[in-house]
């Protein structure tokens, strides 16, 4: 289709070719023809994604914005209700702010701990001499565990009644928190789960640590720098773009934080959508409630599509704001080869 488009254009160009005439194509004409063929080719290569971009990105976004101004429960037709949904979500739905607060907690604590831990494990692995392959595989393995499986496993391990973690803690005389069943400990438990699956960050940090020019360390050592100073003045400046990358992608992942939170809540609450019972996310006490779960709850459990779309748009705005940090030239995301 795109090729036909190109051909038509070429004919059009020919008709208005002007001074040089159709018989003897000028270099200018040839150039233009080449450019058009290139445009058609580009379009052809991009076409699957252009369709996808339109149908699965632009259309649903416009549609979400539209629904956010309507009252719609899935039956009949949506009817325009102005800013009512916005007012409802921002002013009358305390769970919205609770979701934002939880998300902020996860961004501050979970993301930073995960990045710090990933960097630590990455540094450790670059210094292991014996059994490096074994350790690398072991450190990486949990990252591969499917999130639902990993969460179910953690809900068992951290089960306050019968789980081995609290049993171990009890044996060495430490307090035994309620983890996934205690509003104060559910997010720390989820953080531990996230740190367990730190393999991706470990690999990225490992690669970037090995890229740090060795001469810089030698020079620093000659200047009498200790290990801490070497880390501070050589390692950190060299890998700071990677840390930045890890933080930003971590924040974006947190904006999408869904599976682990909802599965942990379901398993720990004992209400697993069984036998007519319906599980409302956020257990215990709304402490694991996040905005993506709110979209699910409002949209697919309470069937208030309008309000769900408002939350979806808020989620969109935050995600795109964070993404724009990645789009800065410095991050290397947009690097070109020419």
């Amino acid at each position, binding site marked *: 289709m795109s090729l036909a488009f190109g051909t038509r254009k070429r004919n059009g160009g020919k008709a208005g070719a002007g001074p040089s005439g159709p018989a003897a194509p000028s270099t200018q004409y040839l150039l233009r023809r080449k450019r058009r063929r290139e445009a058609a080719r580009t379009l052809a290569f991009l076409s*699957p*994604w252009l369709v996808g971009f339109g149908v699965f990105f632009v259309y649903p976004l416009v549609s979400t914005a539209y629904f956010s101004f309507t009252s719609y429960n899935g039956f009949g037709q949506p009817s325009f209700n102005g800013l009512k949904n916005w007012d409802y979500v921002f002013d009358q739905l305390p769970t919205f702010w609770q979701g934002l607060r939880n998300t902020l907690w996860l961004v501050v604590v979970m993301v930073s701990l995960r990045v710090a831990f990933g960097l630590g494990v990455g540094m*450790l692995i670059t210094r292991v001499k014996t059994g490096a392959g074994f350790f690398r595989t*072991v450190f990486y393995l949990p990252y591969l565990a499917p999130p639902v499986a990993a969460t179910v496993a953690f809900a068992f391990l951290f089960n306050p009644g*019968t789980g081995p973690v609290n*049993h171990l803690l009890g044996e060495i005389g430490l307090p035994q928190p309620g983890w996934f069943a205690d509003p104060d400990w559910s997010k720390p438990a989820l953080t531990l789960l996230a740190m367990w699956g730190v393999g991706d960050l470990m690999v990225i940090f490992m690669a970037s640590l090995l890229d740090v020019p060795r001469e810089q360390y030698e020079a620093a050592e000659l200047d009498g720098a200790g290990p801490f100073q*070497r880390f501070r003045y050589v390692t950190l400046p060299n890998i700071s773009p*990677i840390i930045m990358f890890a933080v930003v992608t971590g924040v974006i992942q947190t904006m999408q934080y*869904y599976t682990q939170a909802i599965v942990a809540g379901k398993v720990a609450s004992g209400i697993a959508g069984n036998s007519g019972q319906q599980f409302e996310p956020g257990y215990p006490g709304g402490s694991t409630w996040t905005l993506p779960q709110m979209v699910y709850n409002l949209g697919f459990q309470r069937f208030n599509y309008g309000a769900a779309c408002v939350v979806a748009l808020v989620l969109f705005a935050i995600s795109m704001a964070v993404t724009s940090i*990645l789009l800065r030239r410095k991050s290397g995301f947009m690097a070109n080869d020419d």
Partner: protein
Amino acid sequence: MTPSNTLTEAPAPTGATRPAARPGSPAARAARRRALLDWVAVHSLAVAAALFFLLPFVFVLLTSLMDDQQALTTDYWPTHWEWGNYGKVWNTPGFLTWWRNTLLYAGAGTLLTVVSSLPVAYALAKFRFRGRNLALMAVIAMMMLPPQVTVIPMYLFWSKQMGLSGSLWPLIIPMAFGDAFSIFLLRQFLMTIPKEYIEAARIDGCGDLRTLLRVVLPMARPAIAAVALFQFFYCWNDYFGPQIYASNNREAWTLSYGLESFKAAHHTNWNLTMAATLLVMAPVIILFFFAQKAFIEGVTLTGVKG
């Protein structure tokens, strides 16, 4: 340097390159002692970290082999080794269907993603055209978009317009139209292919498609393998998608979604739940051991160099 080098060579510790003192001198002995201490410290930390990463697997495995009663106690070690638990899980009604569906979702999804994303990535990496940066930005925006943002119109579209609610097709079909993350990852790799190869192919009279298939494709094989693996894992692990589109129809459930309902049905039969958990993890982990290199290269590729 390419990231793959780091995988095959054991990295040298940063302190190892200092000028060696004369053997036998006190300085040399002190250095040796320091190196030994360093070795011990590093390796004890590594063992501690390995315990942190491995113990959950070990507990899950041990619990999966206990009998029903013991799984509810705080014991660590099974008194009777109930290998039959795995058989019980395997024979749970629906378990095989979940496997089949997951394989279909992950298999078809992966194939479609690779086929549809490669040409797009190639165009973004190697063609010069107006709006290229804009297109790239759009790809990144799509990649970072939480799936919940668009789920309501998409659900209404697939269920009401297309009548495909209760199946995995609403998740598979979009993958025929390019996946943003795969496009991005492939583009990052294709950028590293020197222009000369492509120009040489063109001079030999290859069209763009032929150049892509004959010259670029073989060179991009590691990146394609990484993208395929990522997509396979993504589909395998996906919970939100099947929860929205397939939860109504037990026949369309995937392993990730089914595992949770398995937990619901077997509540504190933690032994069976843990056996099911391991059965869901196993294929992914086995696949990793076969394709470790491609996978780690892929992860490294996502961390872009500044």
